[in-house]
């Protein structure tokens, strides 16, 4: 039995690098899992299948008769989407948003975790400080960042004015201008993502075997070399855990977009999630909305699956 003295305890879950010997117990484990599986099938599996069916119909909520399936028109919704310029723009926005947010969050969290791991005074206080944003609802974060970036009253513009970088008349319209709208959303979601990732990476860093670093020091490795050739590769499983957890939650960015710009102005920050809301909830086009939902489901699942595979490869789950 591998009672590993270096086993990380930071995040408790899933951070254990040890191969566990498992017990054979016939039907018993299935009985344990069954209730969970039934519930998930009821609440996630079946509705998703239903939504697939709806996506093949021209269903609109206010026209109850439109929920009927005809083979000839089955792919109409998907065709409509492919020809819809707004759809492509929101897809592009979503991809840009995801790429920038995921990469930057990861890099910043990595840097922050390395910084934190060297702190000798009050590390636990800093960890607690770091965890506070984890508790905020994304809606709340979005709302507050919208206020921070408000053109007339926001803290950011006020700060820039008092520093003298901009004039009192030349306030920056953070949430309105073209690249700025995306940038503010990205800043808000990075701020929300950093705590979880940093905590996981910090737990990983603290659990690394010190002998390796001592050997490297004896060999005269520099700080950067130690990070590049020891810390970073050894952190791989933790990196993938952090990225997997993030990809599970990535659609929660919807809340932020919804409250900060709601895809506007003039669809400049429209993303798939907000566009679904617009189509299905506001225009009651449930068929079209469901078709697009399936595209987002596919994206999210692919994302998660990719990181999860990497995680398994890094030998952490099994």
């Amino acid at each position, binding site marked *: 039995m591998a009672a590993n003295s270096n086993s990380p305890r*930071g995040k408790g879950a899933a951070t254990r690098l040890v191969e566990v010997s*498992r017990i054979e117990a016939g039907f018993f484990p299935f009985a344990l899992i069954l209730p969970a599986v039934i519930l998930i099938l009821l609440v996630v599996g079946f509705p998703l299948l*239903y939504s697939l069916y709806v996506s093949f119909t021209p269903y609109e909520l206010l026209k109850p008769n439109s929920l009927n399936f005809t083979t000839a028109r089955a792919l109409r919704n998907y065709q409509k989407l492919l020809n819809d310029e707004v759809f492509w723009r929101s897809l592009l926005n979503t991809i840009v948003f995801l790429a920038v947010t995921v990469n930057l969050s990861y890099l910043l969290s990595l840097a922050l975790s390395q910084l934190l791991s060297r702190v000798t005074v009050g590390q636990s206080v800093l960890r607690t400080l770091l965890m506070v944003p984890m508790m905020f609802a994304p809606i*709340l974060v979005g709302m507050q960042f919208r206020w921070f970036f408000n053109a007339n009253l926001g803290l950011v513009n*006020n700060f820039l004015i008092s520093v003298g970088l901009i004039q009192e008349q030349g306030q920056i319209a953070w949430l309105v201008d073209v690249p700025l709208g995306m940038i503010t959303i990205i800043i808000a979601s990075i701020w929300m993502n950093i705590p979880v990732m940093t905590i996981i990476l910090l737990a990983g860093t603290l659990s690394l075997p010190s002998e390796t670093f001592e050997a490297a020091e004896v060999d005269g490795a520099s700080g950067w070399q130690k990070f590049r050739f020891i810390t970073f590769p050894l952190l791989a499983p933790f990196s993938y855990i952090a990225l997997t957890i993030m990809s599970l939650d990535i659609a929660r960015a919807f809340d932020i977009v919804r409250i900060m710009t*709601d895809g506007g102005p003039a669809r400049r920050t429209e993303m798939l999630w907000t566009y679904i809301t617009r189509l299905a909830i506001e225009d009651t086009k449930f068929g079209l909305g469901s078709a697009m939902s399936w595209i987002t489901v596919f994206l999210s699942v692919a994302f998660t699956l990719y990181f999860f595979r990497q995680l398994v490869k890094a030998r952490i789950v099994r």
Partner: protein
Amino acid sequence: MITRSVGPNRRRNDIIWNAVAWVILIMLALPAFWIIMTAFRPNVEINTFPPVWIPRRLTLEAYANMFGLNPEVQQRVAVEAYLRNSLLASGISTVIAVSLGTLAGYAFARFRFRFHTTLFLGIMLSRAVPGVALSLPLFLLFNRVGLVNNVLGLAFVYVAVNIPFTAWLMDGFFRQIPTELTESAYIDGCGHWSAFWRIELPLSLPGLATAAIFAFLAAWNEFQIVSVLARNNAAKTAVHGGLARNGGDECDHDGAGGYLCDSGSAQPSQRIDLRRGEGLSHSAQSQWKTSSMLCHHSPSARSSTGFCIGMQRSHHFCVVSSAAIAAISASKSSP
């Protein structure tokens, strides 16, 4: 942990690292500090230029306004209903999700069986489904069985949404308990169930607490699903009813970036043209209509400024207390 030789250079480096880390983290925590303090400051102070960084006066008036203790604030919205819905949905779903998730997590951590990876992956992937995508079919289906506008329906959804992460967390916690313990329990005559119930579950209580906190927070903070499933004011949760009532861009021009905003500015779902639905008896559609009409006409939908801010603040209160609990449990379990 990296051992270090002590020398004057090292010590100087240490001081620099500490200073840099503290400065960066405090900067990172500033928005959080601001968000929390907003709850206890008078409006004048929040909106002045130049910004007042250190609060001069702390007040609980927003809470008083919210709960109707201030006679000057006439219009009030169903704060009690929002909070009750939030508590019910989060509480019920947390209890059930943690129970079921713990069972599943235990199975994954302890036993060898067929489809182990497939099942685990399947459960995890169910969590990856975006709430927006899930909310549409859920609305249609729940509408048939009368679970729209129902807290229990919401709790039911949150259970399923919270199981995967709970199972993952508990899987991790159970793995840290040595297998020998279980095996010796078997030797002493325990069955699978009593070994779990009497030996391993008590040992995993700290993990259970952490999982519960995460599940509760996830449910409490959830917005995407409740925003579709709750079609009238009485069914909304604190996050939905209190925080997100002003979705439109119009709010930007208002005072404190939106939460000062009067929700008289149209909410998206209000824009549906009611005439289109005339004469149709489809129940989904009537649900929809009711909600739109409520938003349009009922005076309670027009919220007062004090309410909007207050609602946001009540949210803080719960958030902060749970943050404290989470921090304590996390610091106990970290090295």
